[in-house]
């Protein structure tokens, strides 16, 4: 055995340590970089919150809760009561969910349980594609196709033929631009979100759940109702809340079809306003700082509401996928 020269050994050791050191260092740099990127996400949430509330602060300080509780929006007089817009946001989103939820769950059940294999891909694709259409295109279609259709046919039918005009919800003249038009557009826009989440959680329901129900003599519908849907319930509710989050914050399409009138009316045939459309509509012509700040205050309220709805939705969907993982 020949021994290696000592100085060579020392040198080689140094060289290798250096290499290990270098790669340890570059690993550190890499990890710091990706961690910084990940930090951007919570940083962004904080930055958005700070910026929106900073912009809204003058109005909150001057007007206080009257922004939420009063319903007189008169820029010239300095009255900024956004209650009609908050009311409109809630009503239009509620109408959207009432229309979209049964449809979306129907589609999801169809796709996960009954669809022939050759139909599954195209139908799923077409419904998902609804989410890819820009909201301004929905608005354009709403103005020139949906509103005339509602005004000429649907509204008279609901009010006169079905005699729903006797209730306060369908009373009065059919203008066209209305809460109903906004609700219908929003229902189409929320549909793909609800149906894709529902489909996913329905598909995650174990086969054994279905087989057990069928083995007990359930019909296929009873199997869905008693064994499949209850298992996926919180996930489906999460999907509905995601759709709700979309509907609450949707701006362009609603601004184009709702009529933009700051009044509270029980009738769905009457024009209305939403928080998002109020901001979008008045921002460019905001005349003074208080007006601008009042709009930002409405934005801040919208931010808080959608933050809560979305966080709740994600939590529900996650709790389902955790259950599946266990």
């Amino acid at each position: 055995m020949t021994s290696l020269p000592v100085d060579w050994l020392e040198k080689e050791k140094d060289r290798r340590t250096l290499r290990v050191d270098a790669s340890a260092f570059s690993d550190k740099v890499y990890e710091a970089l990706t961690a910084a990127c990940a930090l951007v996400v919570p940083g962004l949430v904080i930055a958005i919150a700070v910026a929106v509330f900073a912009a809204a602060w003058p109005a909150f300080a001057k007007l206080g809760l009257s922004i939420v509780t009063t319903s007189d929006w008169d820029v010239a007089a300095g009255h900024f009561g956004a209650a009609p817009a908050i009311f409109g946001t809630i009503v239009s989103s509620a109408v959207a969910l009432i229309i979209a939820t049964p449809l979306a769950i129907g589609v999801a059940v169809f796709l996960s349980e009954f669809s022939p294999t050759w139909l599954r891909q195209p139908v799923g694709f077409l419904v998902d594609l609804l989410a890819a259409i820009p909201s301004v295109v929905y608005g354009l279609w709403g103005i020139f196709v949906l509103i005339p259709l509602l005004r000429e046919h649907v509204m008279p039918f609901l009010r006169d033929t079905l005699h729903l005009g006797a209730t306060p919800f369908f009373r009065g003249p059919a203008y066209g631009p209305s809460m109903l038009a906004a609700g219908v557009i929003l229902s189409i826009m929320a549909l793909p979100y609800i149906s894709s989440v529902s489909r996913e959680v329905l598909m995650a329901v174990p086969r054994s759940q279905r087989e057990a129900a069928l083995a007990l003599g359930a019909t296929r519908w009873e199997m869905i109702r008693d064994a499949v849907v209850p298992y996926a319930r919180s996930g489906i509710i999460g999907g509905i809340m995601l759709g709700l989050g979309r509907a609450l914050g949707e701006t362009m399409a609603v601004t184009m079809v709702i009529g933009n009138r700051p009044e509270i009316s029980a009738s769905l045939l009457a024009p209305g306003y939403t928080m998002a459309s109020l901001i979008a509509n008045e921002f460019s012509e905001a005349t003074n700082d208080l007006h601008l700040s009042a709009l930002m205050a409405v934005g801040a309220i919208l931010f808080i509401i959608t933050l809560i709805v979305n966080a709740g939705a994600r939590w529900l969907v996650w709790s389902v996928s955790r259950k599946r993982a266990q």
Partner: protein
Amino acid sequence: MTNARSRHLVSGAMIGLTYLAAALATLPLLFILFHLLVKGASSISLAFFTHMPRPVGEPGGGMANAIVGTLILIGIASAIGLPIGIGAGLHLAEKKTTPLAHTARFLADVLNGLPSIVMGIFAWEVLVRPIGHFSALAGGVALGAMMIPLVTRTTEEMLLVVPTSLREAALALGYPKWRTSISVVLRTALAGIVTGALVAVARIAGETAPLLFTALGNQFWSTSFREPIAALPLQIFTYATNAYDELHRLAWAGALVLISIVLVISLAARFVTRSRFGAPVD
């Protein structure tokens, strides 16, 4: 016996209703595409792509500035959203259970559902108000900020599909961690990440609300980052809510172009993943 029969009748009826729901749910898309084609196609000509908007009353005129503006805005947004999103996705996929990863994952999902108008207010407060004028850069930043959470989550999901054995093999060969991540793991998942990036681009390409507060729109030709810039969705909004029939026609044509851009990107996204995962694995 009659009981069983009525139960089966109910079952059949309910199944029929789900078929009906599927039919109804696909109708709006077909309607919208149909109307876009019927009303938009007749107003599209070469001039639409190469000419500037003309004053009302003068025939012709196009949206050249808006189309270029939209491309510039997409460019700025991608330059911001893609690197940060992919970096964050790498972190989430590699450090699955750290507090930072949990927080970032949850907040990325929450950000994805945030109304785009709020993103507009944010960019306005940070980049427009202090500087004193609207700009293409502010618009691009607003759109880029919207891309970050989307790209983060899709990148993470795609990276998680890469088998651990691949990473271990690279590490065993003496690759440092960062090279393993970038030239082995990231490369394997590249098709999926490209898909995620395309989906994010398709989503922001049609955004209008944030641009009202930032890019503002511009009647004239401008490619400067520091000036207000025209954008296709903004132009469609302005024309659609105008009183002139001629502008309505241009709005339909613009919408047809916009939806074509979005659909081509969406289909490309599908195609990229399919050709990758559709290939036989050996």
